[in-house]
């Protein structure tokens, strides 16, 4: 990188691009291998570095494009929007500015098709207050399960969240109970819930519906856990070991069914859906 002329350097994102989503520049420096990657190539590759397989965080729209059949995504529950039940400092302003940016809450839910198979899908959006779960996320997830139960459709949720939404206080804490209870009822209808954990899935989301999948798939190197790393370090007063709370660590510890490369995810999901007889 340092060898490049300044005029080209400007094209790259800065190293402290902390949210790690696909940047808009034409060239990208890969946090995995530090090599320079041509952005259209990266997109062709589903946001996975062609050199080292580093998985970039991708947006909700990219998830929809990469995973579902073209034009198959039909949004549901977008009419449910956030309010500010606690009158929490700055929350209302934050919501307004996010809506202004065209974002629609920390999860998008809807119908979709995978290789023709009809499913219900939820994709969390970490751009929306770190993908935190407030009343709207809780309500949408619960409705997604209920819809799945009523229509005998499988549910696939791609999680990416910092946890419960502080700004809604205990109301948001109880969304954990609400989504988990909905997952239980859905499960009792003998339908399939595939939970996909992406970078990062922590706190109240990991400790509720995300870990209640019949099948739990994690993206390579995704950070997954309950407590935040800084909190753990402050508590135990020591550095965390290499790879701690990463997808591969969780696979070894028995908490995810497998780690799946994003480029294989679609075909894997289709296979799983077929084995569960959802192709009709």
């Amino acid at each position, binding site marked *: 990188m340092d060898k490049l002329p300044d005029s080209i350097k400007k094209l790259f994102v800065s190293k402290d691009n902390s949210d790690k989503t696909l940047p808009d520049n034409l060239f990208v420096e890969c946090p995995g291998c530090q090599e320079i990657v041509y952005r259209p190539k990266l997109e062709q590759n589903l946001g996975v570095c062609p050199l080292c397989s580093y998985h970039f965080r991708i947006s909700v729209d990219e998830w929809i494009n990469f995973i579902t059949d073209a034009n198959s995504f039909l949004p549901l529950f977008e009419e449910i929007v956030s309010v500010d039940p606690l009158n929490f400092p700055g929350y209302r302003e934050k*919501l307004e500015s996010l809506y202004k940016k065209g974002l629609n809450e920390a999860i998008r839910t809807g119908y979709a098709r995978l290789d023709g198979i009809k499913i219900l899908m939820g994709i969390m959006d970490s751009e929306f207050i770190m993908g935190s779960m407030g009343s709207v996320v809780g309500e949408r997830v619960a409705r997604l399960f209920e819809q799945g139960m009523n229509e005998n459709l499988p549910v696939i949720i791609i999680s990416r969240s910092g946890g419960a939404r502080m700004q809604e206080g205990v109301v*948001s804490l109880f969304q*954990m109970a609400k989504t988990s*209870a909905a997952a239980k009822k859905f499960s009792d209808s003998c339908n399939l819930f595939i939970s996909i954990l992406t970078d990062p899935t922590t706190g109240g989301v990991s400790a*509720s519906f995300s870990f209640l999948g019949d099948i739990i798939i994690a993206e390579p190197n995704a950070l997954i856990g309950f407590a935040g790393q800084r909190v753990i370090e402050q508590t135990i007063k020591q550095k965390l070991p290499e790879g701690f709370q990463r997808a591969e660590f969780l696979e070894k510890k028995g*908490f995810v069914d497998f780690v799946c490369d994003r480029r294989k995810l679609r075909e894997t999901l289709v296979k799983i859906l077929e084995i569960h007889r959802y192709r009709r």
Partner: protein
Amino acid sequence: MKKEKILKQIDRLKSIAIAEGIDLSSEINKLRAMLELESDDFQKEKQMKEVWEIVQNSRKIERPKPQDFIKNFIEDFIELKGDRRFGNDNAVIGGIGYFDKYPVTVVGIQKGHTLNENIEYNFGSPHPEGYRKALRLSFQAEKFTRPILFFVDTPGAYPGIDSEERGMAEAIAENLYYLSDLKTPIISVITGEGGSGGALALGVSDILIMMQNAILSVISPEGCASILFKDSSKAAEASVSLKLTSFDLLNLGIVDKVIDEGPGLEVNPEIGYKNLSEQILTSLQYFTSLSSRELVEHRNQKIRKIGYYKDTTGYLKKGISNTRNFIYDLFKL
């Protein structure tokens, strides 16, 4: 007091206006506006002090801990240990016994009254095996259709390497999942500090009771302050925003009953014990009278309806799927 100074100033201007026959009303109105502002701050300050005192009381080492409630309430208590998977978590105590004439399963989070006790009980922070023990005993209670009493007092689930290794997230999630559908009455009491997911894991219930000076919060005030104000010493300020007191949560529709502690459990627990005991008895009488189907339906409806949001359906034309701009506009209304 700034407020009193302003009041004096207003009085002074009034007497001048009367004495000298001049119109000072605009000056007086300015002062009145200042006064109102000052009063808000004053109220805020007062409220902050009150809430912060509750937070501190809820954590007091003298305050009765779940194990004390068990000792006081449960006759013939027999402790049952272990998760049958990995270990016995000392932070969680569980067992069977009688509440009044009712055989019950009881699970509490133990917190110490001394440093040594606190070390033994890990300061009331359970590991995953603690929650799995609670769930094991809950299934046992279900088998024998025995009501369950949860007594909760915890700063939260323990954030350690071992906790994560053994799947804290999964453990809490499973509790929420199975308790929502458990076919026996569940009564949950927040007795002191209700710390986030680690408290909620024993909070899925038919009736959620809070002691008057207990707290229940999505995040500790200190944690909230360090995120919100980048300054954990502003915890008192954060504690107000979080709406973590029993009365806040009653108003928000999350807590079903608040128990009068009289002088405060940490001062003299007798009144609090008595009031809670009566509430538990009434609840046992009511919930054991329901069929398991009614019970689970009631519990699910209770959980299902928690949440504050705006349903903008009325404003939307049918067939419009991308509602982003609508929503933004509506929000401003």
